[in-house]
């Protein structure tokens, strides 16, 4: 019947509406941004990464190709380092749409001169040049399954299909009335079909089996800057002006209009195995859409208009690895994310290095070994090595009233025993930094208040022991959620130690900092009040006070 001693409930703040969603958390984990300037600061017009193929090629070069000015640059997806630069374009020529074949051997690119060039990646030799287009070629694209087929689209309003060995185009689609600036092969159900977007405000779907006529035409209200087929092959995204339309190919009508950007959307990319869409626009924003609800679930801001973007995935299950964004200013931004395993490995390495530097590597090794044996190992093997005589069985003492995992909650033990000062010392101790989360300190201070022991716990401190709590209060007094407890603690501290002010320089400085902090927050509050007053005037009698 005796009540069990349980651990204190940690204090939780009420959840607010501005919580970070798991989705935001995921996209925020793309950190360690790398900003790479391009030569001559020419804008980065295209970033390409070979789409994941159904038959992975083991020798494939893991790289993505970036087109800017007269160069194609190949970056490694592993190290984010520049692997190769291909710059065999004319002086006045500008390269467009560098695309790497999925086996990583051949790169194709169009140019302002109207030429399409295919390069060998290793030797950087020009394998083939086609000069059929009379106007700049803005789009080249490899066929998703056939290694030798590719397409191109040009400002001369034509769209052509090519075979790598042959000199002439295999097919020519005529129908656009203006520059064709975007296009690609369809995948999934509509494998082999071609979709293009043009400045004549239309998106056309071409079937190589039908001659001279687009299979489908979607009219938009602005020039189409980018098209992107979804994996299943029945949905198509097209960026026209500052809108992105989601086109349903089966029903042959737009399903959704995404009006989230302020300026022209220039690039579209798939992420997270086709379940997320990223859009980049001239307003410098990258937005992440959920493909089920078509809601914006995350976003990034870049300092300059975005011209191209891609999400580079890697590994067996195609996890998103890099978010690569090309900017008008010629900067290439690469943000990377580490998967869970990589993260722990990195942490471990770091710890090991630190131990090595501090000269505690042996202790570290011992600890690791112990950990590797798992929990309860000692318990399981206890007494196994015992050979002597004596008692048959050793029974552990009465465990009633013991707090579980007492090492973890040493401070709770001290609190339970009525050693209030000790509890506060333990929870704020610098070596306990990992455990001394805010929640712990907050829980303890609240518990102390509930036991009218706050004053006792705070009093009788010297210069050294006063500092941690004073620092904590100074740091957190601005948090509106815990104002009550922080102000209460601060008041008690001032009450107890005001007469000792001036005896220690450090403490004086800390109190000064506390004062500054409080004054800042009071000013902020004053501003809020002013705003409230103005808003009240605006709202008038509609809503009450």
């Amino acid at each position, binding site marked *: *019947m*005796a*009540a*069990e*001693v*349980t651990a204190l409930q940690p204090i939780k703040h*009420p959840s607010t509406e501005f919580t970070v*969603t*798991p*989705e935001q958390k995921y996209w925020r984990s793309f950190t360690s941004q790398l900003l790479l300037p391009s030569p001559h600061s020419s804008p980065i017009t295209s970033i390409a990464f070979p789409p994941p193929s159904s038959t992975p090629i083991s020798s494939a070069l893991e790289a993505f190709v970036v087109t800017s000015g007269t160069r194609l640059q190949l970056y490694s997806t592993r190290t984010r380092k520049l692997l190769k630069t291909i710059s065999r374009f004319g002086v006045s020529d500008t390269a467009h749409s560098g695309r790497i074949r999925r086996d990583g051997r051949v790169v194709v690119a169009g140019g302002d001169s109207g030429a399409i060039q295919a390069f060998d990646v290793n030797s950087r030799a020009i394998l083939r040049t086609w000069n059929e287009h009379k106007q700049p070629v803005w789009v080249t694209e490899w066929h998703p399954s056939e290694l030798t087929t590719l397409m191109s689209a040009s400002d001369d309003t034509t769209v052509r299909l090519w075979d790598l060995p042959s000199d002439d185009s295999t097919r020519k689609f005529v129908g656009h009335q203006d520059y064709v600036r975007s296009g690609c092969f369809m995948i999934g159900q509509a494998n082999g079909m071609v979709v293009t977007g043009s400045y004549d405000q239309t998106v056309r779907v071409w079937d190589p089996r039908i001659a001279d006529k687009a299979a489908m035409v979607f009219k938009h209200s602005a020039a189409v800057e980018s098209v992107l087929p979804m994996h299943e092959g029945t949905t198509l995204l097209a960026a026209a002006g500052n809108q992105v339309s989601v086109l349903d190919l089966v029903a042959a009508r737009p399903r959704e209009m995404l009006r989230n950007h302020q300026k022209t959307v220039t690039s579209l990319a798939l992420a997270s195995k086709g379940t997320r869409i990223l859009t980049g626009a001239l307003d410098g924003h990258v937005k992440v859409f959920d493909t089920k*609800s078509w809601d914006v679930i995350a976003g990034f801001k870049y300092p300059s208009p975005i011209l191209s973007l891609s999400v580079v995935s890697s590994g067996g299950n195609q996890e998103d690895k890099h978010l690569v964004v090309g900017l008008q200013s010629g900067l290439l931004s690469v943000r990377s994310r580490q998967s869970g395993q990589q993260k722990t490995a990195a942490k471990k390495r770091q710890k090991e290095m630190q131990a090595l530097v501090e000269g505690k590597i042996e202790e570290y090794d011992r600890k690791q070994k112990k950990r590797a044996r798992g929990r309860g190992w000692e318990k399981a093997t206890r007494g196994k090595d015992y050979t002597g005589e004596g008692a048959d069985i050793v029974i552990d003492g009465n465990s*009633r*009233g013991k707090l579980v995992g007492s090492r973890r909650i040493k401070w709770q033990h001290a609190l*339970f025993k*009525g050693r*209030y000062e000790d509890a506060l010392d333990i929870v704020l101790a610098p070596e306990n930094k990992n455990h001394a989360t805010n929640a712990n300190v907050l829980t303890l201070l609240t518990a102390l*208040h*509930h*036991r*009218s*022991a706050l*004053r*006792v716990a705070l009093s009788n401190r010297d210069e050294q022991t006063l500092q941690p709590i004073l620092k904590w209060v100074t740091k957190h007094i601005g948090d509106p959620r815990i*104002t*009550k407890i922080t102000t*209460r603690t601060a008041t008690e501290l001032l009450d107890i130690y005001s007469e000792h002010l001036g005896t220690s320089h450090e403490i004086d400085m800390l109190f000064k900092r506390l004062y500054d902090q409080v004054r800042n927050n009071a000013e902020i509050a004053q501003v809020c009040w002013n705003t*409230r*007053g*103005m808003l*009240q*005037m605006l709202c*008038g*009698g509609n809503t*009450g*006070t």
Partner: protein
Amino acid sequence: MSTEQIPSSKKRKRATKEKQHIREHALKRAKSSHDQTQPVSDGQNASAEKKALPVEKILPEPIFSEVGKQILEKKEKHAKRKVKSWRISEPIGGRFLNMKPIFTKDEKYIIVATYHSILIYSTATSLLVRSLPCNENDTICSYALSSTNETNLYMGISSGTIYLWDWVERKRLTQWHHNTPLISFIVSEPAAGEDDIIHTLERNGKSKNGTLIKSYIPIKGESIPNRVTLFKTSSNIHYFQVLLGGKIIFATSDDHFVVGTIEKESESATSKDSYRWRVVNATDPITCFDVRISTQLATSTHKKKKLKRSIPIVDLITGGAKGEILVYNNIINSLTGIEQSGQQGNSNVMPRRLHWHREAVGTVRWSLDGNYVISGGMETVLVLWQLDTNQKQMLPHLTAAIDGLTVSPSGSSYAVKLADNSIMVLSTTELMPKAHFSGIQSQFFSEKEGPELRETVNSQIQNQSDPLRIFWRLSSVLNPSNPNQLLIAVSPGQSRLESNSIRTSPFLQTFDISSSHHVSRQALARNNVTNFNIGPDHKRLVDPDVILMRMSYDGQWLATVEEWQPSRSQEDPEEDRLDLEVYLKFWLWNPEKDCWMLETRIDSPHQLSGSSFCTRILDLATSPSDIKFSTIGGDGVVRIWRPKTRYRDGRVVRGGDPKGMITWSCQYSIELEKAVEIVDADLELRSATLPIAGKLAFSGDGSVLAASQDFASSATQTLVTFIDTSVGEVKFTRAGLHASGLAALTFVKQYLVILSEALSVWDTVNDSLTYGFTFQIPPLPPHERERMAHLAGNEAEGTFAVALPVIPVDAEKPTWNLKQAFSKVMVFRPENPEPLFSSRISHVVTSLLPLPSKGYLTVDAAAEIRVLTPKTAVLPFVAQGLTMDLPLESTDAEPSTVEETEAVNGDEGMVEEEVEVESDNGKQVELLTFEDDDKPVVRAQQLTEIFDVGPSFALPPVRELFKAVVGLYGRKSRKKAVGEVRA
């Protein structure tokens, strides 16, 4: 600042306009209907003048001066006839007396008592098996088992009567009258002869202080016994104990104890002169003591014949108010030794000191073998001292202070009486509970018993608290899905040593009224059960107080409001407000775990806008038709709370529950009209305009919520606001419906009943005052009145009840006379100002609840429940323990007495008879089978199926036939037997 003033002035204008409009509207209505608002105020004035009316006459006085007289006359006629149409039940529950529980010799039963009955519980099942009531106006003060006859039980009445009962048969055998008030008595085994000897502790009738110890041998048939006074003292003796049939008597007073021994062996223990009394002073007040005769005596009985004056070895232990336990080994010998040595030097005996308890020791007992001392007290820890080794074993965190302890006759179990009005039987070996029974654990008022404690934690609490707080409203609710279950917020216990100190109530007790049985207890708020219960400032830690509690109409949701404030020495209202913690909690019933699970906690739900001040929740109401709660706060805002499914990122949060988790949130927040519009004032001024009381009531269909507030300044007009609960908008505001001093609101049919300084019933359909009158309530402070006046409406029956406290004031001292306090309960119909029923309840009512069928239920300050019902209605439940008796262990495997075996045999005989009857009459049997839903009876067909399988020579072997028949009957008779036992 200037930016705010423009809208505020506009607003004020608008508000005043609206007010005027409402007032005009109200006036018009009032004039058109009856001109009733005016007389109300007249009546008030009149009542104020008539202050000096005797308290007893709280008959309602109609305000209508002209019609009033006629009604009054009529009413008096009617009243005599009608009062009898309602009845009030015997009290149920009650507080256990501050006496140690008694084990019967076979340890199967434990005997305890409340003021009104002696209760006998079974230790095997924790159920109440017998209750022996006393007369209605008497109170039991003590009880004891006869030492000669196991089935006889003595019951002492405080007015000075001792009854003898046969508790097995539940028969009162005989009685003896004394003429002095009794405190307690002890029955002891006679040294020779067959009759018990009774030693009584009585109050000295003449003087205020002073006690007597008398003894007599109760002889049947002699109603006024011949009693001998053994000891007379001017000090107050609190506890006494008698050894060896009266040869040795121990008694303790405030600061000393007295030992009386018979000097001359030959004389019987019946004359005063034969005793020699010795007084030993103690440093601290003695709160408990125990004596035991050590085993050496058994060996020395042989020597007794040789040594004419052998004195037995008696060991005494006492517990003090400061936590010290003193062990006096062989006390009598050492006392005589000191005397014989010529009274020189130190005349004190030197006790052994055991000090672990921080506070007063609640109980101290010898174990049977004398090797251990068992003690307990306010620390809620049971301590077992091993005297030889100085080792202590502890059983901590018993949830309530320990008040008393009894070691069972065989020593195999302890009965621990806890301060939360419960008794727990622990096994001695593993200290695990075997049985537990509890009464109602609500706050309880009692007269001071035991020694006066000075300079202890308890006395500090006593000095601080408000004396009337013990009569404040008890937060309680009846479970709509099981109306036998009463839920009350209870405190961690009221120890006998701090009898009337106020403890806040953080626990929930579920009590079954029909069986007078404690169902469960759980914590509703943070509590200090496992903590140090004394803070570093040497004050008892205060738990949060559950002040309001309501249950949704389907019994699935419970809403509670709790408040907490640290105890402070300096009075600083500003600081106080900052420290106030108010939580609104929503609990969901979990049938698997049989407890309420917290779903949502809302911190400071009524925070004063624009500040961090948290205001109190003044009232909580639940909708009768919808899962919806409503609160009114000290900030003048009404909030309506609704459950909703919890979402995270647009997805339902399931958390193991397939239906998704539910969270409660505020659906509507409606600001009520303030008394004075001060928008731009200091906080201090603003807080002065905040309401001091606010009340809510849902209409019967839950569509309308009525809210009203009461302000400190009496000049303000009282408004009742009607809110449409579906849209959360104020639909109508009515002024002048009630006087100031708002205490409660309720809807009965279309009538709104308002209890304030006056009672008014307002018809919402006609918009007219049906009737109203003022009460002569003793001048309680307003915040007290609000917490002590009760109003409950019974929608189903169309009546409402009012319970008002009557607390007389001592003429000499300006203090409340709490002992004389009682309550007046009246039942009305909203159509008729004559009360249907009016009665006096001898204790102050702390809770008044409507029953789901007809009638009302009251809980009072003596922790007793009474049920008020119309006589025509079937009493829905009465504590069956009081009217019916459970059989005493008739299903024992090995019946110990001959009588019981006979009883069992008798049962079997009955079963057989029934079998014959039923198998004869097939139709009746069929009916029975339909009712019982299983096949307990044997049909003729079934028998024929066994026997008529073919010609007689083709029958199966006899053994199989026998098995088949036995299979039929055997199954049947067993079930039937179980049914018999249950019935």
